[in-house]
């Protein structure tokens, strides 16, 4: 088992530009069931050996797609997400970087009563090595099937963590980059809840960073709702303050946001925190001996 995707996942790619095509080819190469692309104005064409449609509605009707990867430029990304929601796509991974924050406020408010799940934006997407489902941009050779779930706010740091696990002989169920933007779709807590409910996931690696309070909320959730080992790394201990967030942004969540505060909250909840980014895999191995 994995979370969010399985053998029936049929992936649509929204935005078949250069990056969209490049990663469609890589996903196909990996064995993912990519069923088509959407680029307004290019309906009826064929790219990467797949049919291209003018809109999500037509693509879903013709291909039965139930997941999508969004490579649309930032100005159109919010529209693409809502189009996917409206077309009934259940899992949407928005890879696009640079989406205006207010666009995401509207998207998230519009999605409140929807069953669709959004990952991102500004994220590497999802990779499930068990079913060979790659939605997004992760480098698939470093993954191996196994029983550890990975959730991260950073793309390349996800790869770093996964690579360490794989080198230690520890495989993964599903790896999810939730993205580094202030208003994301799925949160750490949402993903942890799914990992907790998944019988095949036996331990979880969570990779956080400075800003916001997602790690603190995750710490509370792990302590009160989870019985699987969770380990964590928080990037940005040495980041200079004030460079990324306005002061009042930290106020509303009770003055939280620094890497030290996050580490304290996590450790207080009994979650081992890797001292160094080079020890993410090792920390998991110690916290969950025998998991592979």
């Amino acid at each position, binding site marked *: 088992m994995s979370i969010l995707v399985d053998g029936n996942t049929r992936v649509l790619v929204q935005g078949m530009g250069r990056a969209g095509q490049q990663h469609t080819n890589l996903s196909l190469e990996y064995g993912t069931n990519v069923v088509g692309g959407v680029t307004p104005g290019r309906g009826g064409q064929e790219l990467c050996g797949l049919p291209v449609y003018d809109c999500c509605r037509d693509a879903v009707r013709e291909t039965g797609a139930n997941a999508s990867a969004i490579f649309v430029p930032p100005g159109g990304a919010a529209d693409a997400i809502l189009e996917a929601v409206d077309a009934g796509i259940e899992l949407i991974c928005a890879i696009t970087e640079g989406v205006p924050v207010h666009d995401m406020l509207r998207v998230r408010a519009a999605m409140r009563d929807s069953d669709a799940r959004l990952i991102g934006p500004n994220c590497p997407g999802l990779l499930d090595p068990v079913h060979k489902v790659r939605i997004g941009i992760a480098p698939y050779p470093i993954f191996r099937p196994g029983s550890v779930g990975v959730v991260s706010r950073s793309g390349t*740091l996800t790869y770093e963590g996964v690579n360490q696990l794989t080198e230690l002989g520890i495989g993964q169920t599903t790896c999810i980059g939730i993205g580094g933007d202030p208003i994301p779709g799925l949160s750490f807590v949402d993903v942890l809840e799914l990992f907790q409910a998944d019988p095949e996931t036996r331990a979880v690696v969570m990779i956080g960073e*400075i800003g916001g309070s997602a790690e603190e909320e995750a710490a509370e959730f792990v302590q009160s709702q989870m019985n699987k080992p969770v380990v964590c790394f928080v990037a940005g201990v040495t980041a200079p303050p004030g460079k990324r967030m306005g002061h009042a942004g930290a106020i509303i969540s009770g003055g939280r946001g620094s890497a030290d505060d996050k580490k304290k909250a996590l450790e207080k909840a009994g979650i081992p925190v890797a001292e160094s*980014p080079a020890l993410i895999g090792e920390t998991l191995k110690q916290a969950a001996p025998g998991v592979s």
Partner: protein
Amino acid sequence: MNVHEYQAKGLLRDFGIEVPPGRMVTTPGEAEEIAADIGGAVVVKAQIHAGGRSKGGGIRLARTPEEARHVAEDIIGMQLVTPQTGPEGKRVQRIYVEGASEIDDELYLALLVDRATQNVAILASTEGGVEIEEVAAKTPKKILTVQIDPLVGICDYQARNLGLDLGLAPAQVNKFIGLVRNLYRLFMEKDCSLAEINPLILSGDNVIPLDCKLNFDDNALRRNPDVAQLRDPDEEDEREREAAEHDLSWVSLSGNIGCMVNGAGLAMATMDIIKQVGGEPANFLDVGGTADAERVGHAFRLILADPNVKGIFVNIFGGIVLCDLVAEGIVEAAKTLGVAVPVVVRLDGTNAEKGREILASSGLDITPASGMRDGAEKILAAVRQ
């Protein structure tokens, strides 16, 4: 992106919010003229992108136009040090001359993007005129919060309830509702991430913004060209600005190990591990998802422009980035720029094998690293030699 107080007040006026009369000037002579135009006492305020200006002597009262001239002479050109500027301070080039106000009481008001609830939130407090962080730490109950659904927008009753909770008189409540509505309109139309009025003063029946800080979403500047124009290059780190022109994300730091990394999380983690092994990073640099030879060249140029840099650590985990292209970029940059400091390169992920071969066969003195800890240790050893 941040703007100056005088620019923020210009936007408040554009959105129908009443502020005291005032103008930005750059010479003592102009300060005197404006003070005479305004009439009565004025406040002369240094325009820099940092809070706590009055503590460093950057905000002073002048009772006559002549006094305004003298005060302006003191402030223009001064190196203003506040709790937010760092010990080196910031050079004042512009001042804002504003009519002085009678102050009955000082409040705090802010609109911001609330990450936890994914709404717009209003924060308000009766404790105005001091840092809101201080209020949050000492008396968190004195901070009032109102959540606004971005699809519904601000409702009058929400602003009214807030005004009543702040203890405003009936006439003040009505003015407050209008102000909050207009501030919300500004916040949404101009893609603000923070709109902070501190203090918001009570003066008779009026509620008047005395200071205002606006922060705009960089991702939305393309659709707000009028806001983008307010950027003040003097307020930005020269290399941060240059990096932004090449689509590189850069923060200058004070160490001697230059870093080039792909991805913000890995870039932060690279700084962390350099510190952990006992070194000091010279910069944070995310070369982004399309690191080709040209971008790598720009990145190297930026790093080498810092005279403190004694070595460079390249840490790349290729996903969307192709390691062989990065390697070609490094070889080209090293050859054309004549890099004289040691370079340690860690390549993993997409096309890493190919990338390592390109570096090994380049004939250049580049030290390969396996993993980020190994890389951090190797670059530290190299700069210590």
